[in-house]
């Protein structure tokens, strides 16, 4: 039986969600040798405005390249949580940036409130790398892609000279995921 795993990364333009989606897809498809598609939806603005990036990962051909029943949603703004949390499948995972998503209404999903941007700002030194911190969290709490594959995909995709900063951001995300598992906020992912 083949699997289909759907991820939606949502927030606003300029947060690097399209890049994060592309990295996630490359990690799965090139380094983990699965199949993956990545697509995006955004407005005409260069910055600001709702932005979402979707990644479908499967071990089979991917017929429809957009999300239908979301396994994992990342919401970096209140608006994106409000709009998309209802598209998450029962038992799915919703990660919100708790600094900005003040009203994360619980639903039929596992809700994780994590200060994603704050971690990026305070521990990595740049709020800009919140997207990579988020990838670290996703790698830690789901086993949909391997840590190693993500690390290689990040290295291949981020601008030259920022590898160290991005690796650090990725590690911060992984550490946060380990803390969530240790504190039993979320269970250790199965294979």
């Amino acid at each position: 039986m083949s699997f289909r795993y759907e991820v939606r990364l949502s927030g606003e333009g300029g947060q690097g969600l399209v890049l994060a989606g592309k990295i996630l897809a490359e990690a799965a498809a090139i380094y983990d040798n699965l199949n993956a598609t990545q697509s995006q939806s955004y407005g005409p603005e260069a910055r600001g405005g709702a932005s979402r990036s979707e990644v479908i990962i499967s071990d089979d051909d991917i017929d429809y390249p957009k999300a239908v029943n979301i396994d994992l949603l990342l919401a970096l703004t209140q608006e994106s949580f409000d709009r998309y949390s209802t598209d998450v499948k029962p038992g799915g995972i919703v990660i919100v940036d708790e600094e900005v998503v003040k009203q994360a209404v619980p639903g039929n999903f596992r809700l994780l409130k994590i200060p994603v941007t704050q971690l990026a700002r305070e521990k990595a030194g740049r709020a800009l790398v919140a997207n990579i911190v988020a990838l670290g969290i996703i790698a830690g709490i789901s086993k949909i892609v391997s840590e190693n594959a993500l690390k290689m995909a990040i290295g291949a995709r981020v601008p030259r000279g920022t590898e160290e900063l991005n690796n650090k951001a990725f590690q911060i995300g992984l550490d946060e995921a380990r803390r969530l598992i240790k504190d039993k906020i979320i269970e250790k992912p199965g294979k």
Partner: protein
Amino acid sequence: MKNSSNTIEIISGNEACAMAALAAGMRFYAGYPITPSSEIAEYLSSRLPQYGGVFIQMEDEIASIGAIIGASLTGVKAMTATSGPGFSLMQENIGYALMAEIPCVIVNVMRGGPSTGLPTLPSQGDVMQARWGTHGDHQIIALTPNSVRESYDMTIRAFNLSELYRTPVILLLDEIIGHVNEKMTIPAAEEYTIHQRPRPASTENYLPYKITPSGVPPMADFGTGLRYHVTGLAHDETGFPTNNPDKIQELLLRLDRKITQNSDDIIEVEEYLLEDAEIAFVAYGSAARSSRHTIKLLRDSGIKAGMLRLKTLWPFAEKQIAHYSGHIKTWFVPELNLGQIAHEVEWAVRGRVPVFKFNKINGEPINPNELHQFVKETLHV
């Protein structure tokens, strides 16, 4: 992003189109960037010069298509890429290329319209504009890929058809296919055939618009010694304008015939699970991806569904749809417009079985769950 053969990459439909254009031998690009097609220009602006080609950012889309027509006359494979607003501006010169029989490829990555509409959001609203956007009776070839891999293959095919039939070919991507990133193995050069336009065998008695059995006259490259007249006016075999009714009729029927008599070569469809299907979709581009997922959902609930997927949109696959009508009890035509192709399907079916439209024009893709729901409600199951 490398361009060596057989590497596995995650690339977008737009990037695949640009890479394939280089593989097809395109060496002249003129365009004016517009979302959601800009990645094609972006990629070619850096890569095309490395292949010894010319990339020009023109002042607008009218100039862009003018430039590629001129370049093609000198014997170079040429292309432009745009979206709805730019495609509107190109219409007059598309007619010129049809009338003067100048091969070129026009890529339109469709976004929501009319006017500037929805720059970043998907649509299939230009399929009738591709057919009838330029004035006068004419045949047109338009191809609609539904994946990144197909964007690659169909770009090569667009150049081949354009060269073989001396005609402009329109490649219609929608925003989803242009922007989706998918895993693709870059094919090696020996995996596809590249065609070149017919050229005159000798310089003796050259007639630029000679009537040949294939309907396609050999084309001399400008600047290589053979001089001839090129015009958008109705012309005779010499290329000079004519008002002779016999010559006018002869020209226009030849232009029609060179496409219609080769429609079996030009029209490609994918027959997906049609053998045992009772209901089927007629779909193209991203709507075909939605349909494919919906077929899985329908079959899971016991409904035998299939799809006739239009890979060539124009000329229209009338024969193929007629062939399956009867065996297929109900057709469904999902589109990101208000039913532009559904009307063509109804015409091909000629009332033998019902045809239902499913349309979306709000900038969102067709969600397979809602299409599934629509089919079940329509069939009362």
